[in-house]
């Protein structure tokens, strides 16, 4: 009987140890490095906030942060818009719904590296989209966003939306299927038009789905790394850098561990800023149930 009581604890023991070390311990370890003057090798004498001061004086970090705001807001906004519209259209008793859903969602199964590779080819300034439109007769058309440092961040948006909007569609579709039909029928009896019913009743009732979708997409945006590496490599120059590529570059190719650690702490902070209010509201709604 005693062993029986211990078994559950024995089963969880490896996970417990691993969680304490590889999640909490490593976060503290990274935090520690961020307070030192580590360069090529980690050093452990605390030097205060010197890396954070340097980080915020770094032009490239500001570009990366600004890019995250641009990429994040466009990526989230466009994905939600496309996802919601596709879900509403698909919810009108469409005959080939299953096939369409499969098509809308397949990019989500691809690696961001594959997505980046394909879009890099499509957006290729000499042989890609530009040539296609030129050969159609619009010879003055130019499309050089991939090599234009003003526009390169928007290519990440294009590829990111292509990959993730189908997933948002699936989230909204699941939400729409959960909406109570009787309310809609009642509104129809009252003579309300379909767009009005969607605008006034259905879309507001999808509030939790909006919430989840925004949280997931923001999370993807902050972590975006592979897509940038494959599509633009952060370039031209560092014009399309995001915090994730900044961190990799400083920590692993330029031998600036302290700065890399400080930038990863900032990314962690950004994720917490999104997750904590979400978890809080989730817990509160559970208690109210």
């Amino acid at each position, binding site marked *: 009987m005693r062993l029986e009581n211990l078994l*559950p604890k024995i089963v969880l023991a490896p996970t417990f140890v691993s969680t304490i070390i590889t999640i909490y311990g490593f976060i503290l370890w990274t935090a520690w490095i961020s307070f030192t003057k580590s360069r090529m090798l980690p050093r452990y004498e605390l030097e205060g906030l010197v890396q954070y001061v340097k980080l915020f004086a770094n032009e490239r970090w500001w570009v990366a942060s600004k890019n995250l705001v641009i990429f994040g807001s466009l990526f989230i906004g466009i994905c939600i818009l496309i996802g919601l519209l596709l879900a509403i259209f698909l919810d009108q008793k469409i005959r080939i719904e299953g096939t369409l859903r499969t098509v*809308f969602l*397949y990019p989500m199964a691809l690696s961001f*590296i594959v997505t980046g590779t394909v879009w890099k080819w499509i957006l290729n300034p000499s042989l890609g989209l530009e040539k296609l439109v030129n050969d159609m007769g619009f010879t003055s058309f130019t499309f050089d966003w991939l090599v234009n440092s003003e526009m390169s961040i928007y290519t990440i948006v294009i590829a990111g939306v292509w990959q993730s909007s189908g997933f948002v569609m699936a989230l909204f579709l699941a939400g729409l299927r959960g909406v109570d039909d009787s309310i809609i029928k009642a509104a129809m009896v009252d003579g309300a038009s379909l767009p009005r019913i969607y605008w006034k009743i259905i879309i507001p009732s999808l509030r939790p789905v909006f919430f989840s979708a925004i949280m*997931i997409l923001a999370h993807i945006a902050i972590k975006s790394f592979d897509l940038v590496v494959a599509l633009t490599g952060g370039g031209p120059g560092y014009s399309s850098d995001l915090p994730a590529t900044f961190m990799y570059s400083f920590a692993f190719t330029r031998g600036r561990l302290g700065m890399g650690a400080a930038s*990863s702490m900032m990314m962690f902070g950004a994720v917490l800023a999104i*997750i904590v209010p979400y978890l809080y509201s989730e817990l509160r709604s559970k208690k109210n149930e």
Partner: protein
Amino acid sequence: MSRRSGLGPGKSQGEILFRAGIYTLLIVAAIYYLIPLIIMIFTSVKTMNDIRTGTLISFPREFTLDAWKAAWGSACIGVTCNGIKGYFWNSVIMVVPAVLFSTLIGAANGYVFSKWKFWGSEVLFSMLLLGCFIPFQIILLPMAQVLGVIGLAQSMQGLILVHIIYGIAFTTLFFRNFYVTIPQELVHAAKIDGAGFFRIFWKIILPVSVPIFVVSIIWQTTQIWNDFLFGVVFSSGESQPVTVALNNLVNTSTGVKKYNVDMAAAMIAAFPTMIVYIVAGKYFLRGLTAGSVKG
């Protein structure tokens, strides 16, 4: 379960137009999602001359599998020119044990967290969930140090270990959320009959677990196969996974750029997860929503 605009047997002209409009928009959207795949396929079977003279969506003038052969067996990645095949098998060797172990550990954890709660187990579960949210950049530096100390730096074993460790948070979440829906009374009754920890798992829990095993295996397979960050940080040279090799192939600028080879290599790298998606799309979606919504 879906809804429609309350049309009876006699459809008005407006209704027909409305539905035609919806179908048109949906088809346009489908084309938008499919075009990159079509471009990828077309480009991969074209000759370089065809690529330079044609356009992205022009039909291949002569069909050739040379680019596929090169991508698989002879394209230059880094200093070696053996194509992507070695890296493809690296990914297979990485995915199988990583998925297996993370799923089994997740199943055992989920069983305890749902059916054998003890003082502190809820707290541990909440603590573990942070692993689903952290940007992995925050653990890269310490993990690289630790792998160096235990002699697994830049090795396949080290990479597999990292994937198992950071997969457990997700797999545990899947299994725990699935197992809480199994009535506790079943477990109680079995306990009264004298069944123990393992017997209850084996006889009651495991037989109903097939769907969640499928969800977990599919989720982990796509996540680990598609991973780039861990691959690029924790492996090097010949032990790199296919995503890293693909990126190296595409983004090293030596000699003439062969777009057809790039596209063939991208399709090879995408192939396993696409198959998983086509065969088990339903479970793939369940993993996506369970893995990302239920925080």
